[in-house]
């Protein structure tokens, strides 16, 4: 483990933790501008977090350690992904851990921690949100694995850095049907996992429609700040994974300081751009009925399966 490699990991973690609320702010601002509102500015999520951090965390009576540890597990699991995934550099010392299946299970660990915390409060909203979240996760998880499998079949390894390096080595692969189908499947899953429109509306507290917000309704103060920060990081991690798996150009292949600096700027730019496009796309659509969400995820599953089969018979 070299010093330069450690610096690379630290840069990556700092970028995700510091940049994730800015990404959320950027997406809200894009949406506000497109809807003709002034918007609160890109820094607003950070200002909210600072305010919440100063407040006392109130925990409902009768909740156990499950409720207390939920935000921490969510934050920690997302932090591990931010450290190991090849966002800035493929030459990370934590390379061996950056397995696609490990990353997916870490994502799921965060989801499960939050659903258990939602159930632990014993309120109607917590249980309802948890039930919906688990339904969506159960449908989304096979798809994310299939899309990843299609990508790893091409390279012969499920290591994320290997997949990114493989795409860098043969750029023509990006236009193959397997990759395009996997990209569509992955995009749908990212939208579902990050709780964006049309699966979940992050801006609403309407009781009939909320999913993520229903689970975290009982959190306050510091706990809420941790949950909000972790959710923003989760969004950044998911967007970062999708840009680097499908459009990896600009990622550093060494740990040289200048390469790291350039890769950091390119990564921030790519994720910011993708986030802005996603926000602009959300302006034009409405949230779907919950009963239509399985249809969306079944379609995404089909794309994942077609991607896997196409990577075998169209190669």
């Amino acid at each position, binding site marked *: 483990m070299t010093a330069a490699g450690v610096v690379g990991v630290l840069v990556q973690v700092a970028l995700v933790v510091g940049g994730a609320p800015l990404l959320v702010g950027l997406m809200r601002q894009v949406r506000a501008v497109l809807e003709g509102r002034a918007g609160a500015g890109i820094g607003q999520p950070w200002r909210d977090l600072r305010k919440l951090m100063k407040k006392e965390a109130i925990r409902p009576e009768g909740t156990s350690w499950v409720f207390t540890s939920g935000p921490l597990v969510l934050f920690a699991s997302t932090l591990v992904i931010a450290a190991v995934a090849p966002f800035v550099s493929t030459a990370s010392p934590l390379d061996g851990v950056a397995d696609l299946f490990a990353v997916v299970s870490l994502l799921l660990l965060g989801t499960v921690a939050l659903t258990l915390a939602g159930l632990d409060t014993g309120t109607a909203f917590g249980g309802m949100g948890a039930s919906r979240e688990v339904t969506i996760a159960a449908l989304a998880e096979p798809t994310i694995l299939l899309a990843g499998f299609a990508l790893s079949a091409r390279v012969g390894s499920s290591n994320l850095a290997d997949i990114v390096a493989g795409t860098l080595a043969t750029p023509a692969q990006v236009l193959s049907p397997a990759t395009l*189908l996997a990209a569509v499947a992955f995009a749908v899953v990212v939208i579902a996992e990050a709780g964006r429109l049309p699966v979940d509306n992050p801006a609403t507290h309407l009781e009939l429609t909320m999913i993520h917000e229903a689970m975290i309704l009982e959190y306050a103060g510091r706990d809420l700040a941790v949950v909000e920060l972790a959710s923003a990081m989760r969004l950044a991690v998911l967007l970062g994974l999708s840009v680097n798996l499908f459009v990896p150009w600009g990622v550093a292949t060494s740990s040289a300081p200048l390469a790291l600096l350039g890769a950091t700027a390119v990564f921030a730019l790519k994720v910011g751009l993708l986030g802005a496009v996603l926000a602009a796309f959300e302006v034009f659509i409405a949230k779907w009925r919950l009963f239509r969400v399985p249809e969306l995820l079944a379609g995404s599953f089909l794309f994942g399966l077609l991607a896997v089969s*196409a990577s075998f018979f169209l190669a």
Partner: protein
Amino acid sequence: MSDVVFVQMLDLVCGGLLLSGVLMLWRRELAAIVRLLIVQGVLLAALAVLLGVREQSVELYLVAAGVLVLKAVVLPGVLHRVLRDSGDAREAEPLVNVTSSLLAAALLTLVAYAVSRPLVALAPSATTRALPVGLAVVFLGFFVLVTRRHALSQVVGFLLLDNGIAATAFLATSGVPLVVELGGSLDLLLLVLVLQVLAARMRLTFGRTDMDELRELRD
């Protein structure tokens, strides 16, 4: 055209064919389905052009032009007219809901892959390896024919089936003789015109174009 570029383009076109077939199962608006049919016709013509470049055959260019005119202009045009006259814009209730049909499509693709393995093994090349795509589109066409009730959806299923057969023929034989393609196309055109008249008669008699109305005998 170099080998690598040819294989890449071929894969892209075949992927597009399969994708447009699958999307036809997903969408409910009949207008969107007809648009997908146009896309599929263009892709089929592109496939013929690709093979024409590969085989350096003028005949295949003519076939491609014929396919383009028939499948991307004339037949969608006819369907569009039927749609405009009939007034109902959506497939109301397919016999199998959309989620299950998408999962069935996944299964059908795997079946197509499994049954075409011996065919691919006969002469492995880039074109024959893409053969499962043609078969999968044929299966999807059959599936639409079986599960959709709207008369227009049935025609779409039939055209999907024919697109699949054409794609399979192109991929398996590296191009079809002009006479064969011409015969097949004229049959198809005639059939769609007859179906159009049938749909119009159904609408006059029953007021809608649900195939279930044809179950009972009337005088």
